[in-house]
Structures are given as C-alpha cells and as structure tokens.
C-alpha cells in the first residue's frame, strides 16, 4: 500500500539549502567546476535560473547558459523573463531558426543574434544558446570569454560537445538528471568505449570518471513525484542519488466523480486513487504477438486512459482533470501509433492526450500517465531494451499516478535472461548488466508490493 509521505516530507533535507550552497560555492568560493545532480522534477531549471540571475544580476558576471535543444533554451528564456526583472539577456541562435510565436510577441525577449560579433562586448551578460550553436561559434574570437558557463540538462550532452567549451570559461556548472536516457550517438560506439576519453558519454558522467573528486551537489527532493513512486524508482534508477518526495500526501490525491464498474482496469485506477501511484496491468504472456506492436496491449492502454477520463478524475484541492492531463509513453513509435489509433477510436483526442516516445517525454510531466513496459512481448532482451534510462523517463513523468501495461512473461524473461558479457569491449562499462539489474529490482519490488495485476484476455 502507499507510503505516508507527510512524515517523510517533515524529515527532508532542506532543498533550498542546496540551492543556496550551490550559488555560494559557484559565485563566492569560485568553484571551477560543479556538477549538480538532480532527480526528476527537482527544480533543475529553477536552480539554473536562480544561479544565472545571481551571477549576472547580482555579481555582474558574463555568463552563458547552454542546453542541448533549442526548445529547452526557449523554456529557460520564458521562465527567466516571467520570473525575474530585466536582465542583460542575449539569445544566440541560427539565422534560419525562428522563435516560437509567443517569444516573438514578448517584448522582454531579446531578438536572437546569429553571430557573436552582434553580442554586447563588455559588461554583464546572460547569453542563452544551444550547446551546438555555442560550440560552432566558439572559434570566433568576438565571442570572447565567459566568467561562468551553466549547462542545463547536462546528461543529454556528449562530452565531445562540452569539452571544447571549457576553454571559454573560468567556471562551469553542470546541472542534470543522471537517470535519464543516454546521449544520442548514431553510430556503434564500441571503439570509443575503451578510449582514454569517452567523448560519446554524457559530459557529467565522463567528468566524474576522469575526476573522481569532482565537486558535486545533489538535489535531495522531487517536487513532481509522490513518495510512493520514489520508493519504487530511487533504488533501481538512482542508486547513487538518494532523494525523497517534497509532495505532501494530500497534494497528490486523485478522486473519481464516477464510481468504478469493478472491472480490473477500474480496480487499478481505484488503487491509484488510494495512493498507490504505480500499478502494473499484465496480460497473459502466452501467445503474445512477436514484434514491437502488440494490439492487445495497445487496447489495454487505450482502455485504461479512456476509463480514467470517463470516470471524471479530479486532482483533489486543485482541478478536474481532462485529456490534456493524461499522457502515454511507448518506447516504439509504431507501437505508440497503434495505441493512438485505439485512443481516437474511443473518443480520446490524441492532440490533447499525447502519445510520445520517452525521448520526447523527457522534461515533460502530466498528472496521469500510462506507459507500455519496454520489455513487453520480447523473447530476447537486448541492450537497447534493457536501457534503464528509457524506462526511468517513462516512470517519472506523472504527478499523481502511472499505469504500466505489459505482459506477464516479463518477469520470466528477466529471470531467464542470459547476460552476454563477452560482447562488450574489454574495459568497457557493462550497461546491459546495469539495465538488467534496474529492471529486475523494479519488477521484484512491484511484485512484492502486490502492484502486478493480472488481466485475462477478456478483461472488459
């Protein structure tokens, strides 16, 4: 059953203290390189904002903030201008790229510049850019040097992109979530796995490997996930980052205006309303279709979402929930599309209830999520399937509850999995083993806590 979060919250380490300490370490003590590790929904971007404003607005420094994707830089800009007073902001981006309409209309957002020579040469500056753009412009002398480089979502950035930027700055702060998906590299990386510098790794991961004493701060709480979820995901996905939930139990209560029909799906939804924030619905493993598209599972997922909406959910003390507050995550585009079609056939608008892959769900949140277990229906578990970051992203998007749909055979497959340690280059880290461990620990935990609910093929 769900754990009481009120007692945990009262004994939480002070999350604000970490932010204060981070700002002090960077700005007053002049720490040259600081790694800030954060669980999902811990307020990473709020910390980046506060650090940027303290550095530029108070200390009068020249600072650059980079993020892997343009959308992330826009999100940061939106937040900075809406939360803080005027700052000497600049946005460096390609001339071919357009600002989103809301930023174009906002007078507080500076017009983007595409060349460093158009940037203010002296004085405090808060430069916002994608990592790629800053990297390409870093050979231009007019860009100058920075007092501080802040890298948001640093775990999505390869070391090959960050390393050349370190010459531009006296201090660097990396802020990121170590449990998320690894950086995207489009080629087989076994040749780089044993190199002296793992340029394809996420920048903070490689820096931690090279500098075991790398100064690190850890954000101790999540403001998104209920404590019940944290109890499931912390150990498998964040073994080196202890954290708790800062959400009080009464702040994450779900209620349904319409009573359940006593079906298995409704009983699962009632469990979520009772505070069990993660529930797994399992179809029989026998005769599961081969391949990534599983029609029966897609039907279950669509039915879960349709029933959730049909029962008129209410986030207690906040708002009634609708299709905009629900999401579906699937590791495969084709399989997700199948579910989307089934959602539409049940009258659920998929422009509101978004069906996305974990790669796109990163950074987003919804009160209620349904996810397809990435190991469902697989006969052999590959390194790709076992990647823990993918499942971690899927299980950390919800604020109230998450229903996993899968096949009963998952536990059997995990138990039978033959680990091919001989396939990895000598000296390389064993990511497949780490992935298997994460999946196994989570599955066992779900089983022990009676969160695995079996469905028959004729469940509705």
């Amino acid at each position, binding site marked *: 059953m769900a754990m009481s979060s009120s007692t945990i919250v009262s004994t939480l380490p002070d999350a604000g203290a970490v932010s204060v300490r981070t700002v002090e370490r960077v*700005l007053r003590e002049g720490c040259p390189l600081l790694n800030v590790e954060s669980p999902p929904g811990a307020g990473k971007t709020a910390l980046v904002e506060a650090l940027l404003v303290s550095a530029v607005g108070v200390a009068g420094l020249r600072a650059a903030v980079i993020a892997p994707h343009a959308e992330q830089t826009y999100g940061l800009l939106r937040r900075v201008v809406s939360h803080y007073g005027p700052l000497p902001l600049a946005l460096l981006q390609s001339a071919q790229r357009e600002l989103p309409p809301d930023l174009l209309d906002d007078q507080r957002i500076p017009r983007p510049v595409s060349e460093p020579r158009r940037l203010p040469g002296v004085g405090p500056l808060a430069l916002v850019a994608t990592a790629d753009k800053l990297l*390409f412009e870093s*050979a231009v002398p007019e860009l100058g040097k920075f007092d501080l480089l802040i890298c948001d979502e640093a775990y999505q950035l390869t070391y090959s992109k960050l390393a050349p930027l370190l010459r531009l700055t006296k201090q660097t702060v990396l802020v990121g979530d170590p449990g998320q998906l690894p950086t995207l590299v489009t080629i087989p990386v076994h040749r780089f796995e044993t190199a002296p510098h793992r340029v394809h790794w996420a920048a903070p991961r490689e820096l931690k490997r090279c*500098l075991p004493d790398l100064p690190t701060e850890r954000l101790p709480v999540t403001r998104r996930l209920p404590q019940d979820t944290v109890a499931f995901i912390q150990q498998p996905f964040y073994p080196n980052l202890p954290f708790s939930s800062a959400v009080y139990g009464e702040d994450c209560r779900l209620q349904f205006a319409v009573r359940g029909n006593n079906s298995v799906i409704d009983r699962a939804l009632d469990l979520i309303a009772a505070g069990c924030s993660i529930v797994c619905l399992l179809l029989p493993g026998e005769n599961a279709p081969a391949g990534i598209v599983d029609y029966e599972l897609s039907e279950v997922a669509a039915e879960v979402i349709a029933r959730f909406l049909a029962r008129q959910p209410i986030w207690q003390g906040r708002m009634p929930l609708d299709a905009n507050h629900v999401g579906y995550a699937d590791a495969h585009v084709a399989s997700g599309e199948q579910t989307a079609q089934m959602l539409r056939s049940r009258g659920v608008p998929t422009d509101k209830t978004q069906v996305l892959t974990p790669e796109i769900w990163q950074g987003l949140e919804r009160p209620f999520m349904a996810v397809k277990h990435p190991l469902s229906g697989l006969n052999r578990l590959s390194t790709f399937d076992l990647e823990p970051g993918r499942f971690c992203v899927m299980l950390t998007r919800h604020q109230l509850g998450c229903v996993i749909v899968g096949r009963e055979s998952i536990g059997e497959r995990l138990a039978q999995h033959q680990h091919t340690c001989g396939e990895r280059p000598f000296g390389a880290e064993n990511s497949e083993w780490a992935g298997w461990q994460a999946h196994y620990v989570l599955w066992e935990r779900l089983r022990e806590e009676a969160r695995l609910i079996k469905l028959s093929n004729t469940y509705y």
Partner: protein
Amino acid sequence: MGADFDLLSGRLWSRRLGRALPIRSTYSVTPDPPETFGIAFIRVAGEERVQAVACGLIGTRPSVITIYNPLARGAHELAPFARTLDEYLTGYYSREQLPRIWLAHPAAVTVLDLLGYRYQSNRHASDELRMMGQQCRALCEEATFPGQQVLAVASTLLMEHIITGQSAVEDQHLGALLAWINPLKGCDPAIESQRRSLIPAAALLDQARDKQVERLRRLARKCTSSSELESTNSQIRALLEEGVAQEWSLLEEARAAFWQLGLAPAPLRYTSRLMEESRERLRYFVSVGTKPPSRPHSLALRLDTYEYMAALVEERDACCDALVRERMRKAGRVIAVRVESVEQPTPGRNPCRLILTTDQAVLRVRPGTWLKSVDGRIQGWIVALAEGAGGKRRIVFRLLKGVRKGRPRVGQQFDMIDTVTFDLRWRKRAVYKLMRQDEPSVVYHNRLPQSLPRHELPNGLLDLAEGKSWR
C-alpha cells in the same frame, strides 16, 4: 508491422521460393574498378597466424604463398604478398584513383588486421613487411568507416543486399549463403546450405587437410635428410595450396554472385562524396599511420566523422534505394506528404511556409526536425505538428531551400526524408584546434583549475537574486 516482422516474413518467403531475395534495389558499393584485388588467407586454427595467402587481381591466377612453419618468428615468406599488395595500392595512389580489395568474410579482415599490427612497426621486419603492415592496418582502419568504398567483404555485402530462407546466424557462413543465391537445380537450398556449412569458410583448412598438415609438420621436425624435408614440405605446400585455392574460389564466386544480383548502381551524386572521403582517408592512413585516436580532440573528431559518414550512407539509401526507403517509411522516417497551402508573403522570397498533410500512421518527426524531398530540391524544418481532420497529420514546414524555383505547388505530393546531412567538420576542426592549443586542464590533465573566490560579493546572493523576482 515492425521491421522484425518484415525480416521474418522475408525469410519465410525466401524459403518458400527456394532462393535469396533482394532487400535493396541499389548496390551499397560503387562498381569495381577495372583492376580489383583479392586476398584469401588460410590461418592456423586458434593461432591467427597466416599459413597461406592467395592474392592478386580478381579474374587472373592469384599468387600463392605458403608458410611451412607459421609459428616461427621469421616472416620472409610474406615478402611476395607485401610486394603484390604494394604494387596494386601504389598504382592506384599514383593515378589518384580508389583501389578496391575484396575479402571473403570478416575472418579474413581479422587476419589482415593482425598482419598489420604485427608488422607495421616491427623493427625486426624488413621495410617491405613494415610497409605491408602499414597498408594492412590502413585498409582495416578504413573498413571501420560507414560507407567506405575500399574494402569489400563479400559475406557482409551479400547479407546487406539479400535475405535468405535460413537464419541470420546461418547466413554468416559464406558457402551456406551462396547456396541460396545460386541454388543448384533440383536441390533444396536449405539442404545444400547445410551440406556446405560443414566445410569451413573462415580462412581455415578443412579438418582432414588440417590434420594432415599438422602430422606433416611434426614429421618435418624429425627429418634428418634435406631430400626427406623437401618432400614433406612439398606435401604441406600442396595441401595449403589446395586450401587457399578453395578460399580464393569462394571469394571469386561470392564477388560474381554479388554483381550478378543485378541491382542498380547508386547515382554518382550520392556516392562521389563517399569515394572521395575513402580515398583521402586511405592516403592519410598509409602515409601517416593508423595510430588510434587517444586525445580528446582527435577522438571527438573521429566521432564526428563516423557520424557524418553514417548520415551520408543513410541519405544515399533513403534517396536512391526504393526498398530501403519503404523500410524507412514504415519506421516513420520517410513521409509521404501533400501540399495543402503555401504561405509566402513575397513570391520567391523568404519567409516561406508550407502546410503539408499526411495520412501516414507512423511518423518519427517532431518540431525542429529537418526534412528534405527525395530529389533534394526542397529542404527545411518542421515548425509545428498537429492532428488534422480524418486522422491526417498537419505539418507546418518552414521552407529554407527551394523558396524560388523548386517551391512545390498546392496539391503536389512527394516523399520527404529526415536524413539531411551537413558537413560541419571544418568548423569543428577549428574548434578542436583551439581546444588543443589552450589545453584546458580539466580536459587534458584530469585536474581542476584553482578556485577563484569572490569575497567582495555581498552576503545572501540567492536572496538578492530572489529580490529581483516578480514572484
């Protein structure tokens, strides 16, 4: 259905028809030059030492080299191989052309690579052998680059182009694979393939010959007279020659089978860049060496090059190969679109937006994804993606290339692909050069620089920052 299902149904269909089926409509390598070199090896089982080599121009009688005692330290027997290889490669360098070397299977690549490692900087070896080592390493290093056009490994190429009615593991045996490509009349290729798979196709002698050679070698060690030794050695030579001749004919058969697939060559506009890159790299590796990159800047540049080459290959396949394109469409990476409207305030000028619709179920695109038409005439990126009426998707597309002449008309339908390549390595090189010059201590020396405290800052920095907050 997913790619796995397609692969499985392809194998079932091939099994039913009793022959291999093509899975590409174009060749992934450019046509062989007039003079194509081939190398076949016989190695010692479990030792990876060469005991016989057949090499030369394909279509001619190869030079055969046999080594009586492959475990001995001397390697003078390899000198003719070194000369032949050098003559071939030097001829091509001097003509500024791209050589082509065929090997039968990945096992031969491993042997070639080990020869390279053994001799490229071996002080006890002759200059000729050191050069051979360097050339072998250069060829194997080049083989690691996606889309390279120098080293053609027959079994790998065949598996890229066809699907058979047996499992992928069984396909690894070149002889078994060929049984499906050139099926014998009246013979089930599955049975023929199983029969052939009992004969090694991995640069090894068959068991009977291997045992005989081992026995003769033991005998040779005990020979007391030179005539007796000569006779034993000639028996060894004959057995090795038979073995390597078998490997050579396997190579020739596989190469012929490959070109007889009758696929179209990829247009030169998509392959010329791959060829040029291959030629330049090979020249660099042979002249400078193939020391693996180990410093941050060289590793980063190598990673960029691999990624760029992989993108070029993908672009070529998406644009030229209809079968590959269909697989990409199923994965949502090729999209059939219809132009619904064009928003261009000033005709022929930027900005220009296209409103596109597609009824394709699977799309692997999102706002910000670059797309181009298959003919490359229009290019741009997705501004927004929304659901339209009747299950269609509506794409707001910012047109960047093709704003004037190539601009599509309303109602026009075409395919768009998500492989848009940009060669930005020259800019990255400049960036890495500066990094190398500045040598940041964190990157090059695993050492943190000194802290730079700012004691003059007021207390309560975060509070002061919060003071600037509107909240």
